[in-house]
């Protein structure tokens, strides 16, 4: 299952905060697709996944797919 999270128009660190609040609401193995056009998200969403040990499935075109691993 996948949950969409529209963060377009939001500036850092809001997209990452919303991702951090949303990911625990999906089951382990499910994904959250973040839509974010803030330039900082391109670095910060992958960095969040690394720091919080979650899986970045894909990134690009203002769209980031993150899988809950734990």
């Amino acid at each position, binding site marked *: 299952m996948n949950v969409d999270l529209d963060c377009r128009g939001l500036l*850092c*660190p809001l997209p990452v905060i919303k991702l951090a609040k949303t990911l625990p609401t999906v089951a382990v193995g499910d994904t959250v697709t973040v839509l974010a056009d803030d330039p900082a998200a391109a670095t910060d969403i992958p960095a*969040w996944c690394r*720091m919080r040990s979650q899986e970045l499935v894909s990134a690009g075109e203002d769209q980031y797919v993150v899988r809950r691993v734990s």
Partner: protein
Amino acid sequence: MSTPPTPAAGHSVGVSPHWSKGHDAPHRDLHSSTPSHSTEHLLATASEGSTCSSVSRVSERTYLDAASAEPMHPAAREMLLSAVDSGWADPVRLHHEGRTARLLVDNARAVLAEAVGVRPDELYLTTSGTAAIQSGLTAVRAARSRVGATIVHSAVEHSAVLRTAGEAAAEVGVDRLGRVELDAFTDAVRRPGVAVAALQSANHEVGTRQPIEAAAAAAGDVPLFVDASASVGHDVVPTGWSVLAASAHKWGGPAGIGLLAVKKGTRIAPAWPMDEREDGLSPGFPNVPNALAAAAALQARLAEAEELDKRHRAWIDEVRRRVAADIPDVEVVGDPDDRLPHILTFSCLYVDGEALVTALDAEGFAVSSGSACTSSTLRPSHVLAAMGVLTHGNVRVSLGRDTTHDEVQRFCAVLPGLVQRIRAEVGM
């Protein structure tokens, strides 16, 4: 010449950013045909001009942004005040006053040249570090136009390098610590059409040193341009480069003095209207007093370097350890060992960088940040982005020669509570 106006003496505080907006009087006085000799209004301070009610805190300031600017070194200040009176004439004139100015600027040049490891006739004085980068890179590129126009550079160079390289650039990535990928650099610099390769001595935001000797070896016949602005006065000057740029205000010298060292055998072709100054590399009337102050600051700084290096390294290690231990979800970035002695950068998850800088400022701590919300463009620091590390909630701490261990410890004690408070405001 008269002595400098007394209001300047005893004040190292900057002119308030508010005065030019809020008061018309300084402009009128400066342009009046019957000038007022009162200059006190020029020295209005932030504590007078701001709306901050807590003026008492201004006296307890802890300045941890030495990498942006340091107060002038006392040796430089003393030198500047006397050089203003003795070194005002035009050093290219043949009269006594001109020869005096020439002698003084030659003295300054000799000291500065020795400090960066070149002969005096290989050192040019420019109007800033940025001017040294722009003119140096441009002149070397122009001299090699037959070979090509490409400037190979790391992704974490100062913006002055990136802007000068412009369209004809080949950018080389860095690793997670901010160190250039040497294999990719070697590959890029050996391609056809490369005019010059640019690599900083150490990074200005995260402190990581770059492998200059190895890069110079890889570059072969391609001149290596080293932006050493972050390191001169703080760290050993690397070897192997053809051209080096530095900036006096980074070592406690005055603003408005940059260094451009060009090793003999490196061809340069300034592509702008040249005059008789600095072989055309820095047109316009030279600032002899500032050049002397820059030299005095660097000389004094190098005499203190060993002690400061030891102290700053130990304290930055301590901040690194405590930030990582006392704050959850924090990323401390940059090389922990192979680095500048005085700089540390870290990023806190879920924290707005501007909010953290402002909260620290209210507690008396001055730091800088590479977060997007603290920049004018809303783009995060290109250095942090190139490293692939967290860009929001970013803080750079940089220690000056006056920084005390007590200040460092108080910073470490205050920071975790502020981060916690800002996180709580967004429900984290």
